[in-house]
Every structure is written in C-alpha cells, then in structure tokens.
C-alpha cells in the first residue's frame, strides 16, 4: 500500500461574475482527474509547464485549496474528507517547501520563532529550551550556522533561505514533504547545493517527497517516478530512467526535446519537436485529448472526441494517448510540422482550438504532403522523411554525421 494515493483528484475553481447576483459562469479545471501513488521513501516528481495544475495538485494534497472531487489517501486516511481540526493535526506529517523562499518566510519573525511556531502548534517539545535544542540540531542538518536562530530572513542569501524553509518542514518530523519548485528561484550553483541537501535528508530521515517543478533535468535527477501533467491531467507516468530513455506521450517527447542540454554536440544533433502555439486556457480545455490542439501526431479520429485514459503500456509506464502503440511502432506519420515552421507559421490560433483547429490541421497536412522531407532543426536537410516520423527526441544517430563543416563553424543549424 502506498503512503500517499490520489484517486481521481479534481480541483475546479469557480469563475464568478456579477456583484449583486454573484453567479458562477464557469470553472477553471486546474486539476481534472489525477490518480497517482507515492511510495514511502521515494520521490515522485511532477513536471509540467505553468498552468498545468501541478502546484494546485500539491496544495490540494495539503488541503490548502478545496478538493472538488476525489480522494487523497494518506496512510489509510482520506484527507479530503477530514474536518478542519483533524486535517490540521495531519499536516504535521505532510509538510510543504515553497518556491519563493523570501515570500514564504515572515520578515518580522526571527528564524527561531519561525521554526518554533509549528512545533508549538503541534505540541512538539515540552518547553522553549527543548524546542531550541531540536531546532539547533535541524539547522545543523540543513547546513545553517547555529547563530541563525536570532537572525531574520532578509539577512540570508537565497540558498540559505530555502534551507530555512526546508528546516521549517523538518522540525515537525513529517513523513511526506511536498516541494513546490524548491530550486527554481536559485542560481545554478546554489540549486545543486539544495538538490544535494534534499537527497541527503531523504537518505538519512527516510522522507517521502512529492517534488513539483518545471525543470525536467532537476526532476529527473531527484525523482524515482515522474508524472507529466498537461492541462490538469497526467499524460504520462514512468520511472525516471524509463521516461528519459523512451518518452511515449507526444507531449513528453516535445517537452524533453525542448530542454536545453549543456552540451553543444548533443544540442546540434538532437531533434527538437517544436509545438504549435501556447497552452490552451484551463477554463476552456479542448475536448477529447487535451493535447490534441498542439499534438504533432494528432489524428482525425478519437483525438478530438475521446479523452484518453492513463493506461499501463508495460513496466509501470503509464501513458494517456490513443495512439501510443502506433507512434512507438513508427506507423503513424506526423500531421503537423515540428520544425522552425511550427514557430513562424501563423495559421494556427492556439486559443480557439474548436474553430481554428480544423483549418490548421488541413494546412499542415497540405504542407507535410507537399514537402515530404521537411527540414527539422537538428536533422540535416535531405534526411529521409521516414526518419521524422520515427525519431524520438533523442539525438538522432543518422543525421549527426551529415552535418556539414560550414554549419558547424557558424554554430547554426
């Protein structure tokens, strides 16, 4: 039995209009039916772009936002059904580390007061002296000097503040820590310090993490299992290595290919799948598969009408796509351009999927039909068209050698 289990979790925010007659005119479907399991002692990484609902999901687990539907089962108890006081007591075991270390620390409280507050609320430590001893021990664990106790948040650097945020979670001896973008506000060299700290703490204290981040590389580094979210639902879930080695959902493929890697050779070689347009509004999500308005492999049947379920495709790799098998087998051709023309081509209107989509799909098909060997960045011009349909966002082997010296020297693709 998993330590934390979400079952068909939904969080919908009402959109209200009118002053006198307050009425609900719609909903923002921030989290729309997510089921996942977090095993004890493991790290579950949740990735996705802004607006995909990953933060709302994290907050819903702690009941910091109201759960609309579904279950949040933690250690056998459904948190979604608890009353306020019972939930408050449960929060000792589920703590959160926030993104903005300065914004989440009260500027008028010194560090001791910040850390002791939660302990007092949950009755940890008999008196102040005992609490102080405990806080000192935790501060040492997260790598802060003992004299930090009487100092205020503004006296610390960003990385140190994040350590304070982590210490605040740790003093309550939680089982699960939900880390919402724990390192995205930090500089690269500091990021690495905090990531290492989180890993050390997990090892020594047996913590379970739910890490929410947009940075795929960070998530891959610290997670055992990764879930990819798009517009309120999980589109793919797999063990960290499996997800990197063979992303199966088109969105994950695009996302992975978009992450810049600090390696010029790899950057030049790998194929980038560029997506059309922007994320549709979660208040008005597309019908059927939420990704169909931007998917390079979108098909005429099913995609726009049936919402795909997250199904196991083997080895605990769960994918929500109707065409996973066909895309993996390479029998499905891309229906949309994914090269630079996806960026500069303006026929697509992302916000109005219902109307514009048909037009765009036809346009793209026309383009794709006319030029079978569409040049894709990273793939040398003239590469066989079949490559484009089978290539996954890993460095494509064949085109690598075809790079001409001139493109290399100019640093252009």
């Amino acid at each position, binding site marked *: 039995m998993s330590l934390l289990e979400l079952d068909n979790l939904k969080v919908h925010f009402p959109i209200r209009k009118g002053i006198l007659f307050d009425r609900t005119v719609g909903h923002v479907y921030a989290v729309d039916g997510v089921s996942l399991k977090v095993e004890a002692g493991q790290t579950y990484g949740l990735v996705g772009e802004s607006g995909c609902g990953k933060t709302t999901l994290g907050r819903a687990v702690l009941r910091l936002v109201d759960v609309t539907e579904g279950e949040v089962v933690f250690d056998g108890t459904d948190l979604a059904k608890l009353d306020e006081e019972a939930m408050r007591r449960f929060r000792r075991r589920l703590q959160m580390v926030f993104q903005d270390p300065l914004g989440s620390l009260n500027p008028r409280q010194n560090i001791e007061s910040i850390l002791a507050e939660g302990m007092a609320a949950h009755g940890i430590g008999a008196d102040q002296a005992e609490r102080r001893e405990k806080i000192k021990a935790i501060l040492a664990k997260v790598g802060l000097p003992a004299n930090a106790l009487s100092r205020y948040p503004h006296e610390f650097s960003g990385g140190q503040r994040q350590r304070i945020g982590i210490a605040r979670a740790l003093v309550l001896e939680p089982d699960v820590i939900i880390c919402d973008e724990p390192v995205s506000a930090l500089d690269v060299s500091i990021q690495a310090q905090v990531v290492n700290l989180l890993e050390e703490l997990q090892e020594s204290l047996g913590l379970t993490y739910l890490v929410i981040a947009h940075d*795929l590389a960070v998530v891959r580094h610290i997670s055992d299992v990764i879930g990819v979210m798009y517009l309120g639902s999980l589109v793919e879930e797999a063990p960290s290595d499996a997800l990197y080695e063979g992303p199966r959902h088109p969105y994950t493929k695009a996302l992975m290919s978009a992450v*810049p890697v600090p390696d010029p050779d790899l950057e030049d*070689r790998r194929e980038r799948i560029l997506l059309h347009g922007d994320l549709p509004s979660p208040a008005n999500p597309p019908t059927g598969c939420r990704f169909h308005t931007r998917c390079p492999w979108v098909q005429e049947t099913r995609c726009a009408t049936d919402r795909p379920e997250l199904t196991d495709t083997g080895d605990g790799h769960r994918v929500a796509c109707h065409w996973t098998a066909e895309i993996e087998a390479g029998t499905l051709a891309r229906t949309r351009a994914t090269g630079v023309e996806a960026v500069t*081509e303006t026929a697509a209107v992302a916000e109005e999927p219902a109307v514009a989509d048909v037009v765009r799909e036809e346009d793209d098909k026309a383009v794709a039909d006319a030029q079978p060997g569409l040049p894709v960045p990273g793939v040398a011009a003239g590469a066989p068209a079949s490559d484009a349909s089978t290539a996954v966002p890993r460095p494509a082997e064949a085109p690598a050698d075809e790079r001409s010296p001139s493109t290399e020297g100019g640093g252009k693709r």
Partner: protein
Amino acid sequence: MPLLSVDELSVTFTAKGRKDSTAVDGVSFDVDQGQVVGLVGESGCGKSVTSLALMGLLPAKGVRVGGRAEFDGTDLLKLGPAKIRDMRGRHLAMIFQDPLSSLNPVVPIGVQVTEILQRHRGLKGEAARKEAAQLLDRVGIPDPARRLKEYPHQLSGGMRQRALIAMAVACAPRLLIADEPTTALDVTIQAQILELLKELVDQEGTALLMITHDLGVVAGLCDEVNVLYAGKAVETAGRRELFAHPTHPYAHGLLGSIPRLDAPRGEPLNPIRGSINDKIAWADGCAFAPRCDHYTLECLTGTPELTEPRTAGHQVRCVNPVLPPVRPAAEVPA
C-alpha cells in the same frame, strides 16, 4: 573588423555615503555580423548591466562608465542622449527578460510596434500598420491584424515575447541584445523563441549578444561564450571548446552543478560551495577564491590576468586552472 568591439568596459555605481560598487569590471569582447556571443553568469555577475551600458540605458547620475564600446566605428559610450536614441531601435535593439513589464500595459500592441516604425523609418498610418502586421506575422503571431489592437495582458507570455522581438527587429538592427529572453517562459515556448532567434541570425545576419544564466541555452545557440563572475570575464572560448574543456574552476563548477537530463541518475551533483556573497575584491586577488577548490595563496596576490593555458583563443583568468580534462567527452546516450 568586428561589428561591436567592447574594450575594458566598466560600470561603477556611486551613491553618497556608500562605498562605490563596481558591477562590471573591465569586460572585453567582440561581436561579429551573424555571430551569437553569449554572456553567461549567475545573478550579480554584471551581465545585464553590461547590456544596459551598451544600450545607453543606465541612469545619467550615480553611474561611472569606463572603457570603450566601438560599434561600427563609433564609441557607444561617448554618444550623447539624442545620438544614442537614434541608434537604439535602428541599429541596436534589445529584448528584455520580462515581456510583460517591458511592454506598456495601457497601450495596444499595434501602437507600440508602429511607434518605432514612425520614429526610425518614417512610416505613417496605413503603411505603418501594414508593416507592423507583417512584423508580427514574421515572428509567428497568429492573426496579426487582431493582435495589433490588443493590449499586452491579452497576450500569452510567449506571444508577448514574440511581440517584443517583432519590435526589436522592426528596423532590421545590426546588433540585437537579448537579456534572458526566455527565462520567464516555459521550455516548449523557450524552444520556439530560441528557434526564432536562430532563424533571425541565420537569415538576416544580425549579430546577437545573448545574455543568459542557462548554460543549456548557450550550448545550443552561442558561437563564442564569455563566462562572467563578479564583473569580470573569467573564461572566454568557443562553445565547443568551453563545454568540452571548462578550465576556470568557476566554469568547471557551474557545469558540474547542473543536473543533466542525459546524465545517469543517482550521482550527486558537485555544487560550488558558498554563494556569490563570499567574494573578495578583484584588486586583492581572484574574486572566486573563497569558493574555489583549487585556490592557493597565489590567488590572493592581485588580479589574475587572462591567459591561454589550453588553446589559442581560449582565455582563462586563473592562476590554478583546471587543466587535465576532468569531464570526459560527452557521451551520447543510446
């Protein structure tokens, strides 16, 4: 002769009753036509101030700017406000990090784009509107005619950044400065914007000065890279050379501390210890010495000079550079 040649640029902020603070401390680099040059570093390294100094956007008071920045024969730092205003937008253009705060929130996109066309190209009325629509189309904004009438808040983040790029390239500038152009954007949108910038450089031969903290972006885009630390360039090299043989301990440490998508899991990262606040003045020695694993007493005897310990053109400001290739050549995952 390079298009832009920056020589010993320094920027010092002065305030009454406070110690002077030097943000940029003698930075030199060249940018050629059609070339992408990167300035990389973490917060506080002086990369943004460098770009503001080049564009003449630093406040007139409380700032001391030194050195030279020759752009096509004219020293940008010596130009008066009116002269630099004529250059800005026409020959030099800039893309900022946060597209929402760099656009005027109460003016439609169309007015903001046509403004520059009127100012520099003398286009008016319908002609300016047509040109503006074409520019938006060029950067991949769907339905440009409608977008021109909209306000910045009605556009998505990626769309706003495209609008900014459209404004920047409106007069086909010869030098484009992009200050963290994709930092505020999601990765898939970032990929779109980077592709667009690359295309502009390839097709128009624009010189691009790319300012970023993201070494991944640098690896994919820049020809030459300058790594800055505490206001000085600590390492300058072509991108392949830099990523294959990071030689300054700081550059080496930076590359070691990035979690990589293609690295095997389970290996701890090698962070650089301390933070940017732990530095000493360049005059006393190497500013990076307090955080450096290689430091010796030699590091505390005056500013280290740029040397070329590895190959010609690969400049490193360090007395104890990381010489044997510590990082194995990148392996391609199967």
